[in-house]
């Protein structure tokens, strides 16, 4: 608010001084035009010279400055919000494809990532890490998804999300992911993605049951808790 008021004040002062022809344009840079040459009383295009009418008009125009600044700022912020929303939507799409490729339906643990809500859990994890880390991980996901990397490692001019999915040797997505994991320069980065994705799958109660993990038991004591020969139980 203070910054906005300061900007408006500067514009008011500068415009008024130009209108009154106290300073030239673009003061303090080299002198190109007189002060009035860019103002209402420049004589162009209606031949207006300074008068009581132009004075009143100028005051009205100057008074409207805050409105234009406000509208311009709102327009800019709306665009920024729209871009941010689009970016999040795309990020969620990449996460969705990544988790369903990593944990497809079937196999020794039948539920796929889509059935246990893995993508949503990974998305929520990103909101719990420091903002700079979230930005870095988001950037990493977009790099992983980019056509340039897919071309370099899978030979296709496509985004990762547009590669052919499915399972088995015909899956372009799996081929691309394996290429990242086996590359000595990218394997560390792939490891970061793998850890984030695993968080969204192996923390799910549906998965716990299928691997005979007893899961949370608090506030009850573990069923296997043994007070031992000397009576450790209080």
């Amino acid at each position, binding site marked *: 608010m203070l910054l906005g008021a300061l900007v408006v004040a500067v514009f008011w002062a500068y415009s008024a001084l130009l209108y009154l022809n106290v300073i030239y344009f673009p003061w303090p840079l080299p002198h190109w035009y007189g002060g009035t040459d860019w103002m209402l009383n420049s004589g162009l295009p209606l031949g207006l010279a300074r008068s009581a009418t132009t004075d009143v008009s100028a005051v009205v125009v100057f008074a409207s400055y805050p409105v234009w600044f406000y509208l311009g700022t709102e327009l800019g912020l709306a665009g920024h919000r729209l871009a941010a929303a689009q970016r999040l939507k795309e990020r969620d799409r990449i996460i969705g494809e990544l988790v369903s490729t*990593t*944990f497809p339906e079937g196999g*020794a643990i039948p539920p796929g990532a889509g059935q246990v809500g893995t993508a949503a859990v990974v998305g929520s994890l990103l909101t719990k*890490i420091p903002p700079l880390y979230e930005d870095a991980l988001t950037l990493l996901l977009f790099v992983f998804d980019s056509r340039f990397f897919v071309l370099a490692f899978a030979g296709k001019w496509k985004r990762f999300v547009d590669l052919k999915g499915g399972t088995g040797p015909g899956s372009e997505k799996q081929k691309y992911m394996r290429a990242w994991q086996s590359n*000595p320069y990218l394997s560390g980065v792939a490891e*970061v993605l793998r850890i984030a994705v695993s*968080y969204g799958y192996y923390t799910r109660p549906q998965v716990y049951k299928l691997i005979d993990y007893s899961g949370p038991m608090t506030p009850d004591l573990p069923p296997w808790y043994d007070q031992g020969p000397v009576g450790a139980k209080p």
Partner: protein
Amino acid sequence: MIIRGADVSRSVTETADVCVVGSGAAGAILACELAERGHRVVLLEKGGYHPKEDFNQKEEDMIPMLYKSSGLQFTIPTGIAVAQGSCVGGSTVVNDAVCFRAPDVVLGWWADLHKVEDIGPDALKRHYEKVEERISVSEVQPYELNKNNLVLKRGAEKLGWASAPNLRNCKTCRQCGLCQIGCSYGTKQSMLETYIPDALAIQGDPVTLYADAEADSVVRSGSRVTGVKATIAGREGRKYGLSVEAKLVIVSAGTVASSALLLQSGLNVNGQVGEGVAIHPSPAMVGDFQEEINGNQGIPMAYHCHEFSVLTTRKPGYMLEAIFMAPYQFSLPLPGFEYEHKQLMSRYDHYALIGSLLQDESVGKVSLGGPLGAILEYQLTPGDSKLMAEGMKSAARVLFAAGATKVITSHRKTTVLHSEDDLHIIDERGVSPGTMSIGSGHPQGGNRMGGAGQKSVVDSYSKVHGFDNLFVCDASVFPTSLGVNPQLTVMALAARLAEHVGENWRRYSGVP
């Protein structure tokens, strides 16, 4: 008095005798013991305050709540996951309660090679004993060993290797197996259950603990520091300033954060801050057994084999430690993805896991070079890689000796050993962070302790060189890699520093 971020709705200024940054193994003890000596202490903790009632035993909730960066802290460029606690109580809240005193030979290196004074076993003995009593350190009893720990015991005994039950800081452990995501029964005697409540119960309320308060800088005035500037994550997500004016500042934020705070405060006066970091890199070896092991049922870390550790060999080595985790953390060292990873994880209840804790060379570095703030650069040296390969082979031998039908290494390319004859495959696959998933829970160094003329940041009593009243006390002051789980030594150093500062208060505080 505890003040959480949610309690704060305006900027705050505090005045104290001592400002301690970090409430973990060192910070909590320092705050408590200095307050007991009559000093007013402000204790700052970046993480939140979560009593045991908040611990719901769900990895999904606890890891973001209790771990630094939600567990997503990695070395650059090697991508080794480095776990550190970020909550009131620090890493003591999420560790496995394993307690070792520093090996005598390591303390000897610190004294002889790094010229640290009064650091021998005898000098530290009374500090260890004091801390051990308060946090209830005791040996795991035979009936408390679950099958995962018994695999290590059986295998080591068959091979004739030195091994023993762990000492742990726990009282009447309920054996839930979830130490790493907070002890919901309150039996683990972390700082959250011991020194923090002790400090807050001292008559006259001399300790003010700010949770959700991140230290931004230590304020300097010539050769003295005058306090700490911090930011509180306050009510409704707003940030508020916290300014602490103090006669003495102790930074105990842990390796990485302590060095980062000194660096961003412009206090790297001799260019050594951030240098010499070790992390105890620990690859996991998973043994598959015909019978159910149910390693998650019972104490995760209750037994170790020290045949090849510095405790026995008196030179840098590796310690084999039984360990187990809940499914997400357990899944990380297993290789592959898609059906292959699912197939491996489906045998979760038949697995035994041995970690090989490597006493690595201190070649890592904390710096502020990246857009993420502090970064930890780390590589394995050729000597580390060789020793790590030996550690992995020894772990595999123990597992086979105990009856494993196969052993899965933590190489990213699925590597399964079917007998000791396959051990050569470990060398063929290569041992490096680029080819393996390696974890770490013990970052140390960065603000190394040392005598005059040594490459060090603090002196023998943790005072930062060139300053009259600035101290660092946590694992970052270790001059070398410790070779055993470090929490007890961090605590002993904190007790030692509290005594030293208390006895020399006038000298350090500048108060006549």
